[in-house]
Protein backbone atom coordinates (compact mmCIF):
# COMPACT_ATOMS: atom_id res chain seq x y z
CA UNK A 1 0.00 0.00 0.00
CA UNK A 2 1.97 2.95 -1.17
CA UNK A 3 2.21 5.41 -3.94
CA UNK A 4 -0.94 6.40 -5.77
CA UNK A 5 -3.96 7.56 -3.81
CA UNK A 6 -6.59 4.99 -2.91
CA UNK A 7 -10.32 5.25 -2.53
CA UNK A 8 -11.58 4.84 1.03
CA UNK A 9 -15.01 3.30 1.52
CA UNK A 10 -17.01 3.05 4.73
CA UNK A 11 -19.61 0.35 4.27
CA UNK A 12 -22.34 0.31 6.93
CA UNK A 13 -19.84 0.66 9.76
CA UNK A 14 -21.11 0.68 13.32
CA UNK A 15 -18.95 1.06 16.42
CA UNK A 16 -20.30 0.41 19.87
CA UNK A 17 -18.29 0.74 23.08
CA UNK A 18 -19.04 -1.91 25.64
CA UNK A 19 -21.37 -0.68 28.37
CA UNK A 20 -22.73 2.21 26.36
CA UNK A 21 -26.22 2.17 24.98
CA UNK A 22 -25.70 4.56 22.12
CA UNK A 23 -23.33 3.69 19.30
CA UNK A 24 -20.33 5.97 18.72
CA UNK A 25 -20.62 5.47 14.97
CA UNK A 26 -23.90 4.31 13.49
CA UNK A 27 -24.26 2.55 10.19
CA UNK A 28 -21.82 4.86 8.47
CA UNK A 29 -21.48 4.54 4.73
CA UNK A 30 -19.48 6.95 2.62
CA UNK A 31 -16.95 6.88 -0.15
CA UNK A 32 -13.92 9.14 -0.26
CA UNK A 33 -12.72 9.18 -3.85
CA UNK A 34 -9.02 8.73 -4.38
CA UNK A 35 -7.03 11.94 -4.06
CA UNK A 36 -9.75 13.93 -2.31
CA UNK A 37 -9.88 15.56 1.09
CA UNK A 38 -12.86 14.49 3.16
CA UNK A 39 -13.49 16.55 6.27
CA UNK A 40 -15.33 14.88 9.12
CA UNK A 41 -17.13 17.57 11.10
CA UNK A 42 -19.75 17.62 13.79
CA UNK A 43 -20.33 18.58 17.40
CA UNK A 44 -18.35 16.80 20.09
CA UNK A 45 -19.73 13.35 20.72
CA UNK A 46 -20.58 12.93 17.07
CA UNK A 47 -17.89 10.26 16.68
CA UNK A 48 -15.76 12.00 14.07
CA UNK A 49 -12.42 11.04 15.62
CA UNK A 50 -13.73 7.57 16.33
CA UNK A 51 -14.79 7.18 12.70
CA UNK A 52 -11.35 8.28 11.56
CA UNK A 53 -9.50 5.92 13.91
CA UNK A 54 -11.51 2.98 12.62
CA UNK A 55 -9.66 3.35 9.33
CA UNK A 56 -6.25 2.45 10.75
CA UNK A 57 -7.89 0.38 13.46
CA UNK A 58 -6.56 2.39 16.36
CA UNK A 59 -10.13 1.63 17.34
CA UNK A 60 -11.40 -1.73 16.28
CA UNK A 61 -14.90 -2.43 15.01
CA UNK A 62 -17.03 -5.45 14.37
CA UNK A 63 -19.94 -4.31 12.23
CA UNK A 64 -19.58 -3.29 8.61
CA UNK A 65 -16.34 -2.85 6.72
CA UNK A 66 -13.87 -0.22 5.57
CA UNK A 67 -11.84 -0.71 2.44
CA UNK A 68 -8.82 1.19 1.19
CA UNK A 69 -8.20 0.74 -2.51
CA UNK A 70 -10.63 -2.15 -2.38
CA UNK A 71 -8.85 -4.01 0.43
CA UNK A 72 -10.64 -4.48 3.72
CA UNK A 73 -8.69 -2.94 6.59
CA UNK A 74 -9.57 -6.02 8.57
CA UNK A 75 -7.84 -8.35 6.16
CA UNK A 76 -4.54 -6.52 6.54
CA UNK A 77 -1.89 -7.04 9.17
CA UNK A 78 -2.40 -4.35 11.79
CA UNK A 79 1.10 -2.88 11.74
CA UNK A 80 1.30 -3.09 7.94
CA UNK A 81 -2.03 -1.31 7.71
CA UNK A 82 -0.87 1.52 9.95
CA UNK A 83 2.49 1.87 8.26
CA UNK A 84 0.60 2.33 5.02
CA UNK A 85 -1.52 5.22 6.26
CA UNK A 86 -0.10 8.63 7.11
CA UNK A 87 -1.18 9.74 10.55
CA UNK A 88 -1.16 13.30 11.87
CA UNK A 89 -2.56 14.39 15.25
CA UNK A 90 -3.18 17.69 16.92
CA UNK A 91 -0.35 17.45 19.46
CA UNK A 92 1.84 16.17 16.60
CA UNK A 93 3.42 13.50 18.80
CA UNK A 94 6.93 13.93 17.46
CA UNK A 95 9.42 11.68 19.25
CA UNK A 96 11.32 14.09 21.52
CA UNK A 97 14.46 11.93 21.54
CA UNK A 98 14.79 11.82 17.76
CA UNK A 99 15.98 14.51 15.41
CA UNK A 100 13.68 15.93 12.76
CA UNK A 101 15.30 13.64 10.19
CA UNK A 102 14.90 10.59 12.43
CA UNK A 103 11.28 11.48 13.11
CA UNK A 104 10.49 11.79 9.43
CA UNK A 105 12.22 8.53 8.59
CA UNK A 106 10.23 6.57 11.18
CA UNK A 107 8.05 4.61 8.76
CA UNK A 108 10.72 4.19 6.06
CA UNK A 109 12.91 2.69 8.77
CA UNK A 110 10.14 0.40 9.96
CA UNK A 111 9.78 -0.71 6.36
CA UNK A 112 13.48 -1.31 6.01
CA UNK A 113 14.34 1.30 3.42
CA UNK A 114 18.00 1.78 2.56
CA UNK A 115 19.69 4.63 4.36
CA UNK A 116 20.51 6.57 1.22
CA UNK A 117 16.96 6.41 -0.05
CA UNK A 118 15.61 7.46 3.32
CA UNK A 119 17.97 10.42 3.50
CA UNK A 120 16.95 11.66 0.08
CA UNK A 121 13.30 11.27 1.00
CA UNK A 122 13.76 13.25 4.23
CA UNK A 123 15.33 16.17 2.37
CA UNK A 124 12.64 16.04 -0.29
CA UNK A 125 9.90 16.17 2.35
CA UNK A 126 11.52 18.95 4.34
CA UNK A 127 11.63 20.88 1.12
CA UNK A 128 7.97 20.09 0.49
CA UNK A 129 6.87 21.41 3.91
CA UNK A 130 9.09 24.44 3.41
CA UNK A 131 11.69 23.75 6.10
CA UNK A 132 15.28 24.07 4.77
CA UNK A 133 16.77 20.61 5.23
CA UNK A 134 20.27 21.90 6.03
CA UNK A 135 18.93 23.90 8.92
CA UNK A 136 16.27 21.55 10.27
CA UNK A 137 17.48 17.98 9.69
CA UNK A 138 19.45 17.68 12.91
CA UNK A 139 17.19 19.66 15.20
CA UNK A 140 15.25 18.09 18.04
CA UNK A 141 11.51 18.72 18.40
CA UNK A 142 12.19 20.89 21.45
CA UNK A 143 13.99 23.28 19.12
CA UNK A 144 10.97 23.85 16.86
CA UNK A 145 8.02 26.22 17.03
CA UNK A 146 4.48 24.86 17.10
CA UNK A 147 3.96 25.44 13.40
CA UNK A 148 7.31 23.90 12.51
CA UNK A 149 6.47 20.85 14.55
CA UNK A 150 3.25 20.32 12.65
CA UNK A 151 5.10 20.68 9.35
CA UNK A 152 7.49 17.96 10.49
CA UNK A 153 4.48 15.92 11.60
CA UNK A 154 3.02 16.25 8.13
CA UNK A 155 6.34 15.31 6.52
CA UNK A 156 6.58 12.29 8.79
CA UNK A 157 3.11 11.15 7.79
CA UNK A 158 3.98 11.52 4.11
CA UNK A 159 7.38 9.83 4.41
CA UNK A 160 6.61 6.40 3.00
CA UNK A 161 4.31 7.90 0.36
CA UNK A 162 1.13 6.37 1.76
CA UNK A 163 -1.98 6.28 -0.45
CA UNK A 164 -4.12 7.58 2.40
CA UNK A 165 -3.72 10.01 5.28
CA UNK A 166 -5.62 10.49 8.50
CA UNK A 167 -5.43 13.92 10.11
CA UNK A 168 -6.99 14.54 13.52
CA UNK A 169 -7.47 18.29 14.04
CA UNK A 170 -3.85 18.86 13.05
CA UNK A 171 -4.04 22.65 13.20
CA UNK A 172 -6.33 22.88 16.25
CA UNK A 173 -3.61 23.92 18.67
CA UNK A 174 -1.98 26.59 16.49
CA UNK A 175 -2.48 30.33 16.62
CA UNK A 176 -4.83 31.71 13.92
CA UNK A 177 -2.08 33.11 11.72
CA UNK A 178 0.01 29.94 11.75
CA UNK A 179 -3.15 27.89 11.28
CA UNK A 180 -4.21 29.84 8.20
CA UNK A 181 -0.74 29.54 6.74
CA UNK A 182 -0.61 25.80 7.31
CA UNK A 183 -4.08 25.33 5.87
CA UNK A 184 -2.92 26.88 2.65
CA UNK A 185 0.32 24.91 2.79
CA UNK A 186 -1.71 21.74 3.09
CA UNK A 187 -3.72 22.66 0.01
CA UNK A 188 -0.51 23.41 -1.86
CA UNK A 189 1.06 20.12 -0.79
CA UNK A 190 -2.11 18.20 -1.58
CA UNK A 191 -1.96 19.77 -5.02
CA UNK A 192 1.43 18.14 -5.42
CA UNK A 193 0.91 14.77 -3.72
CA UNK A 194 -2.80 14.04 -4.24
CA UNK A 195 -3.46 11.76 -1.28
CA UNK A 196 -6.80 10.53 -0.07
CA UNK A 197 -7.16 12.43 3.19
CA UNK A 198 -9.64 12.05 6.00
CA UNK A 199 -9.41 15.23 8.01
CA UNK A 200 -11.21 15.63 11.32
CA UNK A 201 -12.05 19.14 12.47
CA UNK A 202 -14.67 20.86 14.57
CA UNK A 203 -14.13 24.08 12.62
CA UNK A 204 -16.65 24.32 9.76
CA UNK A 205 -14.70 27.15 8.15
CA UNK A 206 -11.60 24.98 8.02
CA UNK A 207 -13.68 22.20 6.48
CA UNK A 208 -15.13 24.55 3.86
CA UNK A 209 -11.67 25.77 2.99
CA UNK A 210 -9.95 22.39 2.76
CA UNK A 211 -12.54 19.78 1.87
CA UNK A 212 -13.50 18.36 -1.44
CA UNK A 213 -16.34 16.77 0.47
CA UNK A 214 -17.62 17.29 3.98
CA UNK A 215 -19.23 14.59 6.09
CA UNK A 216 -21.34 16.13 8.84
CA UNK A 217 -21.95 13.77 11.74
CA UNK A 218 -24.46 14.21 14.52
CA UNK A 219 -24.67 12.73 18.04
CA UNK A 220 -24.26 8.98 17.97
CA UNK A 221 -22.14 9.03 14.87
CA UNK A 222 -25.02 9.31 12.45
CA UNK A 223 -24.15 10.78 9.07
CA UNK A 224 -26.29 13.87 8.61
CA UNK A 225 -25.02 14.94 5.21
CA UNK A 226 -22.13 14.08 2.92
CA UNK A 227 -21.51 16.40 0.02
CA UNK A 228 -19.31 19.10 -1.43
CA UNK A 229 -18.99 22.26 0.67
CA UNK A 230 -20.95 24.29 -1.85
CA UNK A 231 -23.86 21.89 -1.98
CA UNK A 232 -23.99 21.60 1.79
CA UNK A 233 -24.07 25.37 2.13
CA UNK A 234 -26.63 25.74 -0.61
CA UNK A 235 -28.81 22.81 0.35
CA UNK A 236 -28.41 21.76 3.97
CA UNK A 237 -30.10 18.38 4.35
CA UNK A 238 -31.99 19.24 7.49
CA UNK A 239 -32.32 21.61 10.44
CA UNK A 240 -29.37 20.05 12.23
CA UNK A 241 -27.02 20.69 9.32
CA UNK A 242 -28.38 24.16 8.84
CA UNK A 243 -27.81 25.00 12.48
CA UNK A 244 -24.40 23.40 12.44
CA UNK A 245 -23.09 25.32 9.48
CA UNK A 246 -24.38 28.51 11.06
CA UNK A 247 -26.62 31.43 10.21
CA UNK A 248 -23.85 32.96 8.11
CA UNK A 249 -23.93 30.25 5.50
CA UNK A 250 -24.56 32.84 2.85
CA UNK A 251 -21.29 34.48 3.69
CA UNK A 252 -19.57 31.10 3.90
CA UNK A 253 -20.86 30.28 0.48
CA UNK A 254 -19.27 33.45 -0.81
CA UNK A 255 -15.96 32.23 0.50
CA UNK A 256 -16.14 29.33 -1.94
CA UNK A 257 -16.53 31.55 -4.96
CA UNK A 258 -14.18 33.92 -6.65
CA UNK A 259 -14.73 37.22 -8.35
CA UNK A 260 -13.79 35.66 -11.70
CA UNK A 261 -17.08 33.78 -11.67
CA UNK A 262 -19.10 36.99 -11.78
CA UNK A 263 -20.23 39.00 -14.71
CA UNK A 264 -18.60 42.33 -14.14
CA UNK A 265 -20.33 45.66 -14.58
CA UNK A 266 -18.56 48.22 -16.78
CA UNK A 267 -16.21 50.71 -15.17
CA UNK A 268 -18.09 53.73 -13.94
CA UNK A 269 -16.23 56.67 -12.45
CA UNK A 270 -13.40 56.53 -9.96
CA UNK A 271 -13.44 53.65 -7.45
CA UNK A 272 -10.49 53.28 -5.07
CA UNK A 273 -11.09 49.69 -4.04
CA UNK A 274 -9.31 47.06 -6.12
CA UNK A 275 -9.03 43.29 -5.99
CA UNK A 276 -7.73 40.54 -8.27
CA UNK A 277 -10.02 38.01 -9.95
CA UNK A 278 -9.06 35.11 -7.67
CA UNK A 279 -10.18 36.97 -4.54
CA UNK A 280 -13.04 35.16 -2.84
CA UNK A 281 -16.35 36.92 -2.91
CA UNK A 282 -16.38 36.85 0.85
CA UNK A 283 -13.12 38.80 1.03
CA UNK A 284 -14.42 41.25 -1.58
CA UNK A 285 -17.55 41.80 0.46
CA UNK A 286 -15.51 42.28 3.57
CA UNK A 287 -13.37 44.90 1.84
CA UNK A 288 -16.38 46.85 0.63
CA UNK A 289 -17.92 46.87 4.10
CA UNK A 290 -14.65 47.79 5.72
CA UNK A 291 -14.15 50.72 3.38
CA UNK A 292 -17.79 51.80 3.23
CA UNK A 293 -17.86 51.29 -0.52
CA UNK A 294 -20.73 49.77 -2.51
CA UNK A 295 -18.49 48.63 -5.33
CA UNK A 296 -15.00 47.35 -6.12
CA UNK A 297 -12.80 47.25 -9.24
CA UNK A 298 -11.56 43.86 -10.40
CA UNK A 299 -8.09 44.07 -11.91
CA UNK A 300 -6.19 41.55 -14.04
CA UNK A 301 -2.75 40.21 -13.29
CA UNK A 302 -1.15 43.35 -14.77
CA UNK A 303 -3.29 45.53 -12.53
CA UNK A 304 -5.50 46.74 -15.38
CA UNK A 305 -9.16 47.24 -14.43
CA UNK A 306 -11.47 44.63 -15.94
CA UNK A 307 -14.79 45.72 -14.50
CA UNK A 308 -16.78 46.44 -11.35
CA UNK A 309 -18.43 44.26 -8.70
CA UNK A 310 -21.26 45.80 -6.71
CA UNK A 311 -22.69 44.99 -3.31
CA UNK A 312 -26.01 44.31 -4.95
CA UNK A 313 -24.50 41.72 -7.28
CA UNK A 314 -23.02 39.80 -4.32
CA UNK A 315 -26.24 40.01 -2.33
CA UNK A 316 -28.21 38.63 -5.26
CA UNK A 317 -25.89 35.61 -5.43
CA UNK A 318 -26.24 34.63 -1.86
CA UNK A 319 -29.95 34.11 -2.05
Amino acid at each position, binding site marked *: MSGAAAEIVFDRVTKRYPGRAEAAVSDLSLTVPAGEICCLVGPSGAGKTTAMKLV*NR*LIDFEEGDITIGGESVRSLD*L*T*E*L*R*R*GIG*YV*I*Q*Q*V*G*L*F*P*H*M*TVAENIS*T*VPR*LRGWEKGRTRLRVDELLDLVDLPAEDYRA*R*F*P*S*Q*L*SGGERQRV*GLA*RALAADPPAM*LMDEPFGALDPITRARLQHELLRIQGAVRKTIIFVTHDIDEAILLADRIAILREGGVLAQYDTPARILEHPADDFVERFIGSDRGIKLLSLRRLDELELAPLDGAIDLRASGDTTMRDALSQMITHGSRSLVVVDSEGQPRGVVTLDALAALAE
Partner: protein
Amino acid sequence: MSGGLLLAQGEPIIPDFGEGSDCVVENRFFCPDWVRDNWAGVIQPALLQHVKLVVIAVAIGFVLSFAAALVAHRYRLVEAPFTAFSAVVYTIPSLALFQLLVPVTGLTVTTVEIALVGYTLLILFRNTLEGLRSVPPDVLEAARGMGYTRGQTLWRVELPLAVPAMFAGLRVAVVSTIALATVAALVIPYGLGYPIFLALREAFKTEIVVAGGLAVLMALVADALLVAAQRALTPWASARRLA
Protein backbone atom coordinates in the same frame (compact mmCIF):
# COMPACT_ATOMS: atom_id res chain seq x y z
CA MET B 1 37.21 -23.82 86.41
CA SER B 2 36.67 -22.28 89.80
CA GLY B 3 34.33 -19.43 89.07
CA GLY B 4 36.45 -18.24 86.23
CA LEU B 5 38.80 -16.11 88.28
CA LEU B 6 42.35 -17.05 87.59
CA LEU B 7 45.01 -16.29 90.09
CA ALA B 8 47.50 -13.99 88.54
CA GLN B 9 50.87 -15.65 87.94
CA GLY B 10 52.72 -12.40 88.37
CA GLU B 11 52.42 -9.40 86.11
CA PRO B 12 52.64 -10.03 82.38
CA ILE B 13 55.63 -8.79 80.46
CA ILE B 14 54.72 -5.80 78.33
CA PRO B 15 57.05 -5.66 75.34
CA ASP B 16 57.96 -2.62 73.33
CA PHE B 17 55.35 -2.43 70.61
CA GLY B 18 57.17 0.32 68.72
CA GLU B 19 56.13 3.94 68.51
CA GLY B 20 54.31 5.99 65.96
CA SER B 21 55.76 9.16 64.42
CA ASP B 22 55.30 12.42 66.32
CA CYS B 23 52.61 13.44 63.89
CA VAL B 24 50.69 10.21 64.51
CA VAL B 25 51.13 10.21 68.27
CA GLU B 26 50.05 13.82 68.54
CA ASN B 27 47.18 12.95 66.23
CA ARG B 28 47.64 15.94 63.96
CA PHE B 29 45.06 16.69 61.28
CA PHE B 30 46.95 14.95 58.49
CA CYS B 31 50.05 12.78 58.67
CA PRO B 32 51.51 12.08 55.21
CA ASP B 33 53.86 9.49 56.68
CA TRP B 34 50.94 7.43 57.93
CA VAL B 35 49.25 7.63 54.54
CA ARG B 36 52.47 6.57 52.83
CA ASP B 37 52.87 3.63 55.21
CA ASN B 38 49.27 2.51 54.97
CA TRP B 39 48.27 3.36 51.40
CA ALA B 40 49.10 -0.03 49.88
CA GLY B 41 48.09 -2.05 52.92
CA VAL B 42 44.96 -0.29 54.15
CA ILE B 43 43.60 2.55 52.07
CA GLN B 44 43.96 1.35 48.49
CA PRO B 45 42.48 -2.10 49.08
CA ALA B 46 39.61 -0.52 51.02
CA LEU B 47 38.95 1.90 48.18
CA LEU B 48 38.93 -0.84 45.55
CA GLN B 49 36.69 -2.99 47.72
CA HIS B 50 34.34 -0.07 48.11
CA VAL B 51 34.14 0.51 44.37
CA LYS B 52 33.43 -3.19 43.90
CA LEU B 53 30.71 -3.20 46.55
CA VAL B 54 28.97 -0.25 44.91
CA VAL B 55 29.31 -1.37 41.30
CA ILE B 56 28.01 -4.85 42.01
CA ALA B 57 25.16 -3.61 44.20
CA VAL B 58 23.97 -0.98 41.75
CA ALA B 59 24.38 -3.28 38.75
CA ILE B 60 22.33 -6.07 40.30
CA GLY B 61 19.85 -3.59 41.76
CA PHE B 62 19.46 -1.96 38.37
CA VAL B 63 18.86 -5.22 36.53
CA LEU B 64 16.29 -6.34 39.10
CA SER B 65 14.42 -3.05 39.27
CA PHE B 66 14.58 -2.60 35.52
CA ALA B 67 13.00 -6.00 34.97
CA ALA B 68 10.43 -5.34 37.68
CA ALA B 69 9.61 -1.93 36.19
CA LEU B 70 9.09 -3.44 32.73
CA VAL B 71 6.74 -6.02 34.19
CA ALA B 72 4.93 -3.39 36.26
CA HIS B 73 4.64 -1.15 33.21
CA ARG B 74 2.92 -3.97 31.35
CA TYR B 75 0.92 -5.36 34.28
CA ARG B 76 -0.12 -2.63 36.66
CA LEU B 77 -1.01 -5.16 39.32
CA VAL B 78 2.67 -5.85 39.92
CA GLU B 79 3.47 -2.28 40.90
CA ALA B 80 1.94 -2.15 44.37
CA PRO B 81 3.45 -5.38 45.73
CA PHE B 82 6.93 -4.60 44.40
CA THR B 83 6.77 -1.04 45.70
CA ALA B 84 5.64 -2.28 49.08
CA PHE B 85 8.38 -4.91 49.15
CA SER B 86 11.16 -2.54 48.18
CA ALA B 87 9.85 0.16 50.53
CA VAL B 88 9.86 -2.27 53.45
CA VAL B 89 13.41 -3.33 52.62
CA TYR B 90 14.37 0.34 52.32
CA THR B 91 13.15 1.14 55.81
CA ILE B 92 14.92 -1.73 57.57
CA PRO B 93 18.01 -0.36 59.32
CA SER B 94 21.13 -1.98 57.92
CA LEU B 95 22.12 -3.42 61.26
CA ALA B 96 18.73 -5.11 61.55
CA LEU B 97 18.94 -6.40 58.00
CA PHE B 98 22.34 -7.89 58.78
CA GLN B 99 20.83 -9.57 61.83
CA LEU B 100 18.41 -11.31 59.48
CA LEU B 101 20.97 -12.23 56.86
CA VAL B 102 23.96 -13.32 58.93
CA PRO B 103 22.43 -16.65 60.00
CA VAL B 104 21.70 -17.42 56.34
CA THR B 105 24.52 -15.91 54.33
CA GLY B 106 27.12 -15.52 57.06
CA LEU B 107 29.65 -12.78 57.74
CA THR B 108 30.37 -12.37 54.05
CA VAL B 109 30.38 -9.91 51.19
CA THR B 110 27.19 -11.59 49.99
CA THR B 111 25.39 -10.45 53.12
CA VAL B 112 26.49 -6.87 52.50
CA GLU B 113 25.62 -6.97 48.80
CA ILE B 114 22.14 -8.32 49.48
CA ALA B 115 21.49 -5.43 51.84
CA LEU B 116 22.95 -2.85 49.44
CA VAL B 117 21.00 -4.23 46.49
CA GLY B 118 17.88 -4.14 48.64
CA TYR B 119 18.36 -0.44 49.32
CA THR B 120 18.72 0.44 45.63
CA LEU B 121 15.51 -1.29 44.54
CA LEU B 122 12.97 1.29 45.62
CA ILE B 123 14.61 4.29 44.01
CA LEU B 124 15.60 2.51 40.79
CA PHE B 125 12.23 0.83 40.38
CA ARG B 126 10.22 4.00 41.02
CA ASN B 127 12.35 6.08 38.68
CA THR B 128 12.35 3.59 35.84
CA LEU B 129 8.60 3.13 36.09
CA GLU B 130 7.97 6.87 36.34
CA GLY B 131 10.21 7.34 33.33
CA LEU B 132 8.31 4.79 31.29
CA ARG B 133 5.05 6.40 32.29
CA SER B 134 6.17 9.94 31.65
CA VAL B 135 6.04 9.47 27.88
CA PRO B 136 3.42 11.95 26.61
CA PRO B 137 0.20 10.27 25.42
CA ASP B 138 0.39 11.99 22.01
CA VAL B 139 3.81 10.47 21.41
CA LEU B 140 2.45 7.03 22.22
CA GLU B 141 -0.56 7.59 19.99
CA ALA B 142 1.66 8.70 17.13
CA ALA B 143 3.82 5.60 17.63
CA ARG B 144 0.79 3.35 17.54
CA GLY B 145 -0.72 5.19 14.60
CA MET B 146 2.45 4.80 12.59
CA GLY B 147 2.51 1.07 13.11
CA TYR B 148 4.99 0.53 15.93
CA THR B 149 4.39 -2.79 17.59
CA ARG B 150 4.17 -2.88 21.36
CA GLY B 151 7.76 -4.07 21.63
CA GLN B 152 9.02 -1.43 19.22
CA THR B 153 7.17 1.24 21.17
CA LEU B 154 8.82 0.05 24.37
CA TRP B 155 12.37 -0.23 23.05
CA ARG B 156 12.43 2.66 20.61
CA VAL B 157 10.18 5.18 22.31
CA GLU B 158 9.35 4.51 25.92
CA LEU B 159 12.75 3.32 27.09
CA PRO B 160 14.81 6.04 25.39
CA LEU B 161 12.47 8.62 26.85
CA ALA B 162 12.76 7.02 30.29
CA VAL B 163 16.55 7.34 30.23
CA PRO B 164 16.72 10.71 32.02
CA ALA B 165 14.48 9.46 34.83
CA MET B 166 16.49 6.27 35.02
CA PHE B 167 19.71 8.25 35.27
CA ALA B 168 18.22 10.43 37.97
CA GLY B 169 17.50 7.23 39.87
CA LEU B 170 20.94 5.84 39.18
CA ARG B 171 22.62 8.97 40.46
CA VAL B 172 20.74 8.85 43.74
CA ALA B 173 21.28 5.09 44.00
CA VAL B 174 25.01 5.30 43.32
CA VAL B 175 25.70 8.18 45.67
CA SER B 176 23.59 6.72 48.45
CA THR B 177 25.13 3.27 47.94
CA ILE B 178 28.61 4.78 48.21
CA ALA B 179 27.56 6.20 51.56
CA LEU B 180 25.70 3.08 52.62
CA ALA B 181 28.48 0.70 51.60
CA THR B 182 30.44 1.91 54.60
CA VAL B 183 28.09 -0.22 56.71
CA ALA B 184 29.72 -3.26 55.14
CA ALA B 185 32.25 -2.76 57.91
CA LEU B 186 29.61 -3.82 60.41
CA VAL B 187 29.81 -7.33 59.01
CA ILE B 188 33.28 -7.67 57.54
CA PRO B 189 36.47 -5.61 57.41
CA TYR B 190 35.71 -4.54 53.85
CA GLY B 191 35.41 -1.26 51.99
CA LEU B 192 36.09 2.29 53.14
CA GLY B 193 33.76 1.86 56.11
CA TYR B 194 36.42 -0.25 57.79
CA PRO B 195 39.08 2.47 58.10
CA ILE B 196 36.41 5.16 58.58
CA PHE B 197 34.65 3.51 61.52
CA LEU B 198 37.94 2.45 63.00
CA ALA B 199 39.39 5.94 62.78
CA LEU B 200 36.22 7.50 64.17
CA ARG B 201 36.43 5.26 67.22
CA GLU B 202 40.07 6.07 67.73
CA ALA B 203 39.49 9.73 66.84
CA PHE B 204 42.53 9.26 64.57
CA LYS B 205 42.27 12.26 62.30
CA THR B 206 44.49 11.30 59.37
CA GLU B 207 42.57 8.14 58.67
CA ILE B 208 39.20 9.89 58.96
CA VAL B 209 40.36 12.56 56.54
CA VAL B 210 41.82 10.14 54.01
CA ALA B 211 39.15 7.44 54.07
CA GLY B 212 36.26 9.84 54.49
CA GLY B 213 37.66 12.12 51.82
CA LEU B 214 38.02 9.22 49.41
CA ALA B 215 34.39 8.24 49.94
CA VAL B 216 33.25 11.79 49.20
CA LEU B 217 35.56 12.02 46.20
CA MET B 218 34.27 8.71 44.91
CA ALA B 219 30.69 9.97 45.15
CA LEU B 220 31.58 13.16 43.27
CA VAL B 221 33.45 11.32 40.53
CA ALA B 222 30.71 8.71 40.14
CA ASP B 223 28.06 11.42 39.90
CA ALA B 224 30.07 13.39 37.35
CA LEU B 225 30.56 10.24 35.25
CA LEU B 226 26.85 9.52 35.35
CA VAL B 227 25.98 13.06 34.34
CA ALA B 228 28.42 12.84 31.44
CA ALA B 229 27.03 9.47 30.40
CA GLN B 230 23.51 10.80 30.48
CA ARG B 231 24.44 13.85 28.41
CA ALA B 232 26.01 11.56 25.84
CA LEU B 233 23.02 9.23 25.77
CA THR B 234 20.31 11.88 25.68
CA PRO B 235 21.46 14.80 23.53
CA TRP B 236 17.82 15.69 23.00
CA ALA B 237 17.24 16.37 26.68
CA SER B 238 19.88 19.06 26.83
CA ALA B 239 19.18 20.54 23.39
CA ARG B 240 18.62 24.27 23.48
CA ARG B 241 14.90 24.96 23.84
CA LEU B 242 13.27 27.37 21.52
CA ALA B 243 12.63 30.60 23.32
